[in-house]
């Protein structure tokens, strides 16, 4: 069993960091929440509505937005088209057969604005397969922002990014949190990032929840020091 007995309630306007060593079950936990995996037991509720038996697409339409750890884009479509598809889904405009897609200027403009925010506007006509890794990560974040979900799930958004690209993404996540109406979940390895952004830290270890609380308390707790942070501090 990859994840067992992890119960959490996440409130809008807060950012919760989910941390733990490799293989702790962080991504599996995300997959259970966003529907890529079905849990053998337990429930997922969004605004009180049970979404446990819904497909990923149905959960997305109910406000669960997910960005992936391993970049997961439409490799041959342009960056703009990748984002536009997210905007189009949000606008519920996919079931339109007889209009030309680019007649919806509003969707294209919205997609362009999102690309502007992640600083990819100049690469709007480049396909992801030819983008640098860092740019692909930014595009991944752009897709999530374009979906305007109630719950933002970031899975190591800065992994593999060069140092000068990281602040752009962290600023974006910070802005989303500051808006106050969205719930942000962040899987992150870098403890400095977690410290600077998180209102709350959940620690997973071997698929179980070992600590949950405000950053200062969690980081100071002995179980966390031993299970996760201890390893990292000795390595540093």
């Amino acid at each position, binding site marked *: 069993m990859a994840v067992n007995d992890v119960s959490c309630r996440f409130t809008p306007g807060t950012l919760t960091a989910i941390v733990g060593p490799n293989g702790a079950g962080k991504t599996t936990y995300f997959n259970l929440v966003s529907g890529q995996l079905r849990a053998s037991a337990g429930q997922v509720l969004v605004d009180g509505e049970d979404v446990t038996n819904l497909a990923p*697409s149905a959960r997305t339409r109910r406000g669960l937005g997910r960005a992936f750890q391993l970049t997961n884009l*439409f490799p041959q479509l342009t960056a703009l088209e990748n984002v536009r*598809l*997210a905007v189009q*889904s949000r606008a519920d405009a996919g079931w339109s057969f007889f209009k030309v*897609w680019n007649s919806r200027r509003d969707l294209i403009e919205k997609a362009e604005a999102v690309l502007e925010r992640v600083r990819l506007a100049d690469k709007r006509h480049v396909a992801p397969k030819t983008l640098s890794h860092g740019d692909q990560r930014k595009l991944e974040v752009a*897709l999530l922002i374009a979906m305007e979900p109630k719950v933002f799930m970031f899975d190591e958004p800065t992994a593999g990014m060069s140092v000068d690209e990281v602040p752009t993404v962290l600023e974006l996540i910070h802005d989303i949190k500051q808006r106050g109406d969205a719930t942000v979940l962040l899987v992150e390895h870098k403890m400095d990032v977690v410290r600077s952004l998180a209102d709350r830290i959940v620690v997973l270890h071997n698929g179980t929840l070992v600590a949950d609380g405000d950053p200062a308390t969690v980081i100071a707790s002995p179980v966390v020091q031993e299970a996760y942070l201890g390893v990292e501090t000795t390595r540093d």
Partner: protein
Amino acid sequence: MTATSVIPAPFDESRSRAGFLSRALSSDLPRSRALSFILIAIVLTLALTPLLFSGSQPLSTAAKICVFIVLVASYDLLLGYSGIVSFAHTMFFGIGGYGIAIGLEKLGPDWSSVAIGLIAALALSAVLAIAIGLLSLRVRAIFFSMITLAVASAMAVLASQMSGITGGEDGLSFQLPYALRPAFRVFSEPVFGVMINGRIVAYYLVFFVTVGVFLLLLRIVNSPFGRVLQAIRENEFRAEALGYRVVAYRTAASVISALAATIAGGLLALWLRYNGPDTTLSFAIMIDILLMVVIGGMGTMYGAIIGAALFVLAQSYLQVLMDAGSKALAGIPLLPNLVHPDRWLLWLGALFVISVYAFPGGIVGRLRQGKQS
């Protein structure tokens, strides 16, 4: 079969262009001078065939090209744009043919029989496509392909067994409405030296329905819906995560494609005044369609026009050409045998292998690439 690796590099297409032509082509212009030229040449030739050529053979070839443009374009929607490999496309083609044939044979040669036959065929195709889609499009792609193969084979057997309705292996010959019969005259005098008879009316019916259905399919692949299909083809997992119900979109794509194939089958039956297992239902046609899509260029729509024109012309005239070649080479050892008309399939096969190897993006992909480099 992956359809993704052969799509030409993206370009700026987010600006909608003005103008009638651009609107008719749904802003999806050929994007290559050579391609535009070839397409205009094909369409003009098809439009003017009754005036340019005499005799029934060129007109029949042109009508067949038209029918296959619709059939191949509808298959491209499935294979090239949605990444779905179906072997049931000829089944829907056959349903269209039988719809018209049974309608005209049982209800008499008038337009209401055509309408009833076509509507019944479209309804049956839609129901079958929805059933196959919902049952099998949610599972692995190979399973869907196998299901379509099984259903199509069952349908072919059914058509040949139910000879009371379908005419069995012999098929059905029937009379057309009066306006489409050779004896019908639109004008009492010839126009540009050509007597406009019912055959020519029938040809233009085929031609204009082809133009209409092709433009409609081109519009659909360039609609927000068509864009979702391409997203699903590229990354099904992510499309689902973005909130698109992959099964529903795929099923819709296979229904639209099935309906267009049904219309193509109806057109062929109207043109031939006959429908039988060999003209619309056979698996050999399924292979021809696959070849035409791949040769023309998957996921391009325009590839259907070029693929169908090239393939049908080769089918009709390669043997004639080879016969001439064989005679010209008489006396030389081996060579006359190699280009003997009976070997035409060998040469068609060789052409196919070479073209796939040399132009993985099909002819349209190659022409568009040429423009960009």
